[in-house]
């Protein structure tokens, strides 16, 4: 019994039945006095009296049994008996409680813990707390790591997104129902800063979704072959031109697949961003190309532009620009050639276009023995027109939106500003002009190739429908002063300097050729038989077929002019005709140096004849074909260079002044 239990019993006046007689009479025990009651109750619990009794008994027993030897278990027996008695009291107590004697517990004190118990309790609680701390600490560190990884992933993603955002518009849709990896970003490639009438068709390509790739990095998925590039070409053009173009197109957007798959993390970030950027550029350009194609389609069916449609397929438009020129415009998926469609289309067109030829066989001014074929005309490079088409539409589409004027002062492109309906017309006119001027250029080159002392200079006009060239002939200084160095002083030289630089200008406006010569005041009229000093027309138009002849005639007459001036310098008066310089000999005979021009001549275009006539042949000069050589003597001098001409002139002059002879 280590616990002190204090029990107080309620003083309920419950009477216990003592005895019941047969006649039902109940006998209660006599009421005890209150104190006696208490005493009896206490006695029931207090074992002191029992102990006293026992002790008395024990003493009695002891005194009665002093003589006997004590049994070694005697004390234990006595203890057990005592315990038994105590237990019986407790059982009585329990029975009393069970019999509804209310028992209330007044209080209970905790047993004072033993020291080691307290410590062990403390230790257990401490250990539990430490365990919790450890658990929390591990949780913190795990979260830190996971968070770090998440931060790194997102840093890559948002870093890439911000870099791309510097160039492209980013929109965001915050959807609640999207996948956890998708934040709803899109790139908006639609340009809304220009007139909407020009671009009704908002492409499905305009919105590009931003996805994550496997590593969480920004990735863009564009369906393959959805980007189209514009292709422009002439029907009947050589295929190698088109191949060259498509190679150029491919090189634009060839992905750098050879770059770092084995690179570092940072390197592949750059590569990712760059790839995405390139993709976005492709898509953006594809949208523009589609818009251009749309606009061209719309304008082509407007009959006022002078351009007519001769064929339509899907993403393919074939136009006739007049004068037998057929062009096509198509949208091809980037990286592919739209060859089949073009092949089918060429059957529709007759061969109105000159077959193009390669450039072999044409050599530059080489020597006398070079064989110079006439270069056949080929189409101008269609890539340049593709670019030009894009450019003018770009200016139209975007220029008006931003508000800057289309034709700035420095560059007059001649684009009509009105409402864009003239763009295609302007383009076709420019194209026709370019084709024509390339033909003109071919003719001029043919001529200049074969006249060694003639130079061809291109004058830039900065106008898409005008072209201009200058054919320049410069007499070398050495020839000029050959005979005159000893005679005149320098100042006199300058004053009496013979004109040594001659030019002929060819200007093409749309398809009109205009030839202009540096106007000498005393120039010879065209096709006039007499040598008269009149003001001539220095400018005249001609057509393409006559151009070489006219050019050569101009050049030859310039040479004649020069020789005439040289003769004057020496003091000899000669007679000058358009292509002929004649000296009078004593007996009325004339010795003439005649130029002959022939554009088809392989060895040279300008050749010279020496013609000697007697006085009776004056009236025959008017005859164009001088076939009979009865009254005159002709010697073919060949294609002379300028210094040889000069030497010839001096010889002739020498002959004249020496007087007669052959």
């Amino acid at each position, binding site marked *: 019994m280590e616990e002190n239990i204090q029990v107080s019993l309620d003083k309920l006046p419950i009477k216990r039945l003592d005895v019941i007689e047969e006649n039902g009479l109940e006998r209660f025990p006599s009421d005890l006095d209150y104190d006696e009651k208490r005493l009896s109750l206490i006695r029931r619990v207090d074992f002191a009296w029992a102990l006293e009794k026992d002790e008395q008994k024990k003493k009695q027993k002891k005194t009665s049994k002093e003589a006997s030897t004590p049994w070694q278990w005697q004390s234990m027996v006595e203890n057990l008996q005592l315990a038994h008695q105590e237990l019986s009291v407790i059982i009585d107590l329990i029975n009393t409680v069970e019999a509804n004697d209310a028992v209330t517990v007044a209080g209970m004190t905790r047993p004072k813990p033993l020291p080691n118990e307290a410590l062990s309790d403390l230790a257990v609680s401490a250990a539990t707390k430490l365990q919790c701390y450890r658990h929390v600490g591990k949780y913190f560190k795990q979260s830190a790591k996971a968070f770090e990884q998440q931060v790194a992933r997102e840093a890559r993603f948002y870093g890439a997104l911000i870099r791309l955002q510097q160039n492209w518009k980013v929109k965001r849709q915050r959807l609640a129902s999207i996948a956890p990896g998708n934040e709803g970003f899109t790139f908006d490639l639609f340009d809304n800063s220009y007139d909407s009438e020009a671009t009704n068709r908002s492409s499905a390509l305009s919105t590009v979704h931003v996805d994550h790739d496997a590593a969480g990095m920004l990735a863009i998925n564009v369906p393959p072959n959805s980007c189209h590039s514009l292709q422009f070409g002439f029907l009947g053009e050589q295929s190698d031109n088109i191949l060259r173009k498509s190679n150029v197109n491919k090189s634009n957007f060839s992905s750098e697949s050879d770059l770092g798959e084995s690179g570092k993390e940072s390197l592949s970030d750059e590569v990712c961003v760059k790839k995405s950027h390139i993709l976005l550029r492709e898509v*953006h350009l594809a949208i523009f190309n589609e818009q251009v194609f749309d606009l061209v389609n719309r304008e082509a069916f407007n009959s006022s532009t002078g351009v007519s449609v001769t064929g339509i397929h899907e993403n393919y438009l074939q136009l006739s620009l007049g004068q037998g020129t057929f062009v096509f415009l198509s949208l091809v998926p980037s990286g592919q050639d739209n060859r089949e469609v073009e092949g089918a289309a060429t059957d529709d067109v007759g061969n109105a276009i000159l077959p193009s030829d390669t450039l072999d066989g044409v050599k530059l001014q080489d020597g006398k023995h070079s064989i110079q074929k006439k270069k056949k005309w080929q189409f101008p490079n269609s890539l340049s027109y593709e670019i030009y088409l894009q450019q003018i539409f770009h200016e139209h589409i975007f220029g008006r939106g931003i508000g800057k004027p289309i034709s700035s002062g420095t560059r007059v492109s001649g684009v009509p500003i009105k409402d864009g309906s003239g763009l295609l017309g302007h383009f076709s006119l420019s194209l026709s002009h370019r084709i024509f001027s390339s033909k003109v250029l071919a003719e001029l080159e043919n001529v200049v190739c074969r006249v060694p002392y003639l130079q061809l200079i291109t004058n830039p006009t900065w106008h898409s429908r005008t072209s201009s060239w200058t054919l320049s002939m410069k007499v070398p200084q050495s020839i000029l002063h050959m005979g005159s160095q000893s005679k005149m002083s320098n100042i006199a030289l300058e004053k009496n300097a013979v004109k040594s630089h001659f030019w002929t200008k060819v200007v093409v406006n749309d398809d009109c050729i205009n030839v202009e010569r540096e106007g000498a005041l005393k120039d010879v009229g065209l096709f006039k038989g007499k040598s008269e000093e009149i003001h001539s027309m220095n400018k005249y138009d001609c057509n393409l077929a006559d151009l070489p002849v006219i050019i050569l005639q101009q050049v030859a007459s310039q040479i004649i002019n020069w020789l005439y001036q040289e003769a004057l310098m020496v003091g000899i008066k000669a007679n000058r005709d358009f292509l002929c310089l004649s000296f009078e000999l004593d007996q009325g005979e004339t010795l003439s140096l005649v130029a002959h021009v022939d554009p088809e001549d392989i060895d040279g275009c300008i050749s010279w004849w020496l013609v000697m006539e007697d006085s009776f042949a004056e009236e025959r000069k008017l005859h164009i074909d001088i076939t009979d050589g009865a009254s005159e003597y002709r010697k073919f001098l060949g294609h002379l260079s300028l210094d040889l001409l000069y030497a010839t002139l001096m010889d002739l002059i020498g002959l004249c002044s020496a007087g007669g002879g052959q």
Partner: protein
Amino acid sequence: MNMDSQGQTTSLQRLQNVEKRIVKVLELAGGVMDELSSPTGPRKEVVQNHCLDFMQLIKDIQVALRDEIKSACEYRPFENCDYGSRIGSEICFKKLEFVMSQLEAMKQTMDEYHAAV
């Protein structure tokens, strides 16, 4: 991008630093917990240092976030759209490529001429 005068970092970098600090804070908390749970009892100076760092970092985070929120400008993505000039430069790029190819052809012609001569 906003270039700030303090330390020449962009606001993105500053926000990234905030995130790094948060990670550090978590690590410190974990470290303190580990220290407290060590069987030999926590070392006071270690815990104290950790706690000081923690408080410092929290303060830095707060300061940085407050600054960023104040200085965050409204995102106006659709002003001054440069898509038009972008197309212009793409066209210029194509022109350049074309001119280069022409020049290369000219050079080739010259080389052939010199070789023939």
